[in-house]
């Protein structure tokens, strides 16, 4: 790493350290408000109290896609500008995105059981989220499998960008595929027709979860930068055994 390269991560570190407490506080506040609003929200006339699952399910589902978008931007940063921060952003977003996707899947199936009578259905949306989850896991496996981080970053970037094209295609193809075999009996609720009593808690929760992602991501990026410094120093130590002793 050259001096100019180090400069940016260093500036990022100091910036992160300054804004992280504020971000964390804002996240906690919004999530608390959101939790209160969702606890006091009325029951849906059709779904009863289970509508409460929506307030956590939908933000997680949105974030699962949003995080892939963040990774795609970072991937461009890796490939086009070769910015070391982009590598770090890519790597640290993957596990967080996988966690959100996992939550979307689990809360979805927990909602599906009372609503549809089954935890799992090979429905278009569900299936494409499952594939998204698998792709997150594949990406994480890739990061773990390669010990040279810049090499892993470049491979992961190519895969992330190809995945960004592929996921909408999967969504669309699965949509089509489903109409083949199953009657469209799946319960759906249009976002636009949502009552204000549900809409406001949902939006508050969504913003809260987005802030949560930002907080976690910045903190994880800070850890990763430190980890790379440790690595560099260890390598220095290994290459000069006498100087270190």
């Amino acid at each position: 790493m050259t001096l100019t390269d180090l400069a940016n991560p260093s500036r990022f570190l100091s910036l992160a350290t300054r804004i992280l407490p504020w971000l964390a506080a804002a996240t906690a506040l919004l999530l608390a408000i959101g939790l209160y609003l969702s606890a006091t929200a009325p029951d849906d006339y059709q779904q009863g109290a289970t509508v409460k699952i929506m307030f956590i399910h939908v933000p997680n589902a949105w974030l699962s896609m949003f995080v892939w978008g963040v990774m795609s931007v970072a991937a461009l940063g890796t490939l086009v500008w070769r910015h070391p921060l982009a590598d770090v952003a890519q790597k640290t977003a993957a596990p967080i995105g996988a966690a959100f996707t996992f939550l979307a899947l689990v809360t979805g199936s927990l909602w599906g059981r009372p609503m549809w009578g089954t935890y799992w259905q090979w429905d278009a949306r569900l299936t494409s989220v499952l594939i998204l989850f698998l792709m997150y896991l594949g990406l994480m496996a890739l990061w773990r499998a390669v010990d040279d981080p810049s090499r892993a970053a470049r491979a992961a970037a190519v895969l992330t960008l190809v995945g960004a094209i592929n996921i909408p295609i999967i969504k669309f193809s699965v949509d089509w595929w489903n109409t083949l075999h199953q009657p469209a009996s799946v319960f759906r609720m249009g976002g636009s027709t949502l009552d204000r009593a549900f809409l406001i808690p949902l939006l508050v929760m969504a913003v809260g979860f987005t802030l949560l992602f930002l907080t976690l991501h910045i903190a994880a990026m800070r850890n990763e930068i430190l980890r790379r410094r440790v690595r560099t120093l260890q390598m220095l130590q290994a290459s000069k055994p006498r100087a270190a002793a």
Partner: protein
Amino acid sequence: MKLTGRGLRCERGQREVFSGLDFMVAAGEAVAVTGPNGAGKTSLLRLTAGLLALAGGSIALEGGEPDLTLPEQAHYLGHRDALKPALSVSENLSFWQDFLGGDAAETSHALSVVGLDHVAHLPAAVLSAGQRRRLSVARLLAVKRPVWLLDEPTSALDTEGQNTFAAIMTGHLAGGGLILAATHAPLDVAARELRMGAVG
């Protein structure tokens, strides 16, 4: 024609191999890169061939064809010999000739110069170590390129093969080509030496 590198820095796997290296090779000149194992000779050749990303500095070829990059005007002869065992000797050579844009009439001439004409029809899998090396040398002859980057080119060659190769290099230099060769043995042609230091 002149090949120059300035302030070169090489990193492999996040470790610095060398930095601040300068070199210059003029047309008709051979430079022998020497140094202990692990000094970075192979890395320098691969940087020049564009097969490794520069971590700093610049390499330029003056006086070559202006619309071609340096790697496109260079031959790189490495440890791995770019041969397919399943193809015959002549199939291997004429593939590179077609792919790199050489003159198809040269194939059999190149094979006879390196002394492989009698095995031209055999699959490359059955070649001995020296015969494989001779076949990769034939690629240098079959496709004309001014810059030759050679990594221990004479290893595995017998005495006669080394003489032949010296003659081939002399011919290339006489035709205005230039050679940058990493080597532990003497190079058998008049050459300046570029000595690289030992590293961790």
